[in-house]
């Protein structure tokens, strides 16, 4: 099971003076169970790309397969497939709190599953589970107006609204934009939990647009780098972050951690590769220092 893009190109407003090609011939596969990060400078086409994953945008050229089903056919069947894909590919847009509209948090979260035809006990169960996954207590928040909540809480409600549809793939477009550091940290923890599967919920495939290279290094299995609508790099973050020149051309920098370990290595300290967070980096540096000491070099 996977989402597959084959030679996808997309042009905004074709045939007008404002015509603009946002994606050029993109082919990629997102396997189920992975955590895929998408990085790129502002305007590189990240948001355009992810809107192809559940059929919100139809490619100008090429095809998108979700679990082997083409969601781009223009006939009835194709439209049906696109609609089904929206059930299995959940989409959390940038600033998702702006889509809230119901009077209570519970009603807003129930909107998605209700559109799927659920009601009664099952629906309520879904809402409870989704709010819990997003880190909100049903008893405390369920009956509040979403508009009275704080920014971070609103965002969690919006994410719960997508989780309540129980998608197998979850797409998040810069989910931490505009949050304070603590809110950002908490949200990333939630995302990591969703990926593992928790609270009786199966693990989710995460597709994650981010500007934070540190988050990407820490969490992602796969990294896709876009530059002006072209796919310029893809692979595991450790491998991709070694391509400093291509990254710089794409307007990105390797994460602080990678830069630090690389410069340590440049001074001759044999730091092993593969550290993905601060703790692992510390352990790696300690190990390198110890082996250095044993060899009597310092």
């Amino acid at each position, binding site marked *: 099971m996977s989402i597959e893009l084959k030679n996808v190109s997309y042009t*905004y407003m074709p045939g007008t003076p404002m015509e603009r090609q946002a994606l050029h011939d993109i082919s990629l596969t997102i396997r189920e169970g992975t955590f895929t990060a998408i990085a790129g400078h502002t305007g590189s086409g990240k948001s355009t790309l992810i809107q192809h994953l559940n059929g919100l945008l139809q490619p100008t050229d090429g095809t998108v397969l979700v679990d082997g089903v083409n969601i781009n056919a223009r006939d009835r069947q194709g439209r049906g497939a696109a*609609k089904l894909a*929206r059930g299995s590919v959940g*989409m959390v*847009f940038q600033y998702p709190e702006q*889509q809230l*509209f119901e009077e209570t948090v519970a009603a807003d979260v129930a909107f998605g599953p209700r*559109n799927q035809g659920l009601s009664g006990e099952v629906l309520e169960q879904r809402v409870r589970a989704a709010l819990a996954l997003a880190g909100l207590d049903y008893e405390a928040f369920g009956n509040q107006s979403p*508009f009275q909540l704080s920014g971070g809480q609103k965002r969690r409600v919006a994410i719960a609204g997508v989780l309540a*549809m129980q998608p197998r793939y979850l797409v998040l477009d810069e989910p931490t934009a505009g949050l304070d550091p603590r809110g950002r940290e908490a949200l990333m923890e939630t995302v990591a939990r969703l990926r593992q599967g928790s609270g009786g919920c199966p693990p989710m495939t995460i597709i994650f647009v981010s500007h934070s290279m540190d988050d990407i290094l820490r969490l992602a299995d796969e990294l896709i780098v876009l530059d002006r609508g072209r796919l310029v790099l893809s692979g595991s973050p450790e491998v991709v972050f070694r391509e400093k020149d291509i990254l710089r051309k794409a307007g990105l920098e390797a994460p602080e951690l990678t830069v630090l370990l690389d410069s340590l290595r440049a001074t001759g300290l044999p730091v092993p590769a593969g550290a993905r967070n601060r703790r692992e980096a510390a352990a790696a540096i300690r190990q390198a220092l110890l082996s250095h000491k044993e060899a009597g070099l310092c």
Partner: protein
Amino acid sequence: MLSSITIGQYYPGNSLLHRLDPRVKLLLLLAFMVEIFVFTAAPAYAVLSAMTLLLMLNSGVPLKIIMGSLKPLWWIIAFTFLIHLCSTPGDAFAQVWIFALTWEGAARGGLICLRLVLLILLSSLLTFTTSPLKLTDAMEALLRPFKGLGVPAHELAMMMTIALRFVPTLIEETDRIMKAQQSRGVDFSEGSLLKRAQNMVPILVPLFLSAFRRADDLALAMEARCYRGGEGRTQMKALRVSQIDFVAVGAFLLLTVLLAALYFYTV
């Protein structure tokens, strides 16, 4: 789908029409329109059509794009023609059900449709060659003499500038909210009329909320920069009448004389 709507259809360029002072352009357009209504003789219309075509060619805007402005109105034009074709008494050349189609009707309908087409083309030429900002400046300048009569010239112009500025933003926002709700399973293209009306709620509520928020922010930002209405306010790019404007007015007066002569000669 929403992105196909263009409001403020300015087409940047450096043609004669682009360089004309917007106040002069606006007044000449009004005068031109009046002439279209006054000189309703075939030879005069030939000259008017030729003039319009000349202006279109001069503007540097692709003809296809200018003609595109007729598209939303073509059925009104066709309907007008049909009405005249069927309802004008005269020499019938065909009979359809209870309607007699007459040569006089065809001629009259053709003339009135031509008038409509010319009016549409000329006014879209104005918006193609004048940026919305200049257009509102011109309106403010032209309304200023009526301030004594209580016309809030500056306020009207400022409102229009702000509205024009936010149309694309709101379109973009609507597009985004629609996509977000579509991702939550709403299908805007299916269901009964009632269902479709209900489907507007999840779009309109967030849209209004964000519009109010934006209005609030904007008011605050304007106040923070000491905006206090039009009294004593000067412009960074003041409008200035130049040589081409005099040439344009002169050419227009000549045209008027020609049209008047043609009209009185034929009538």
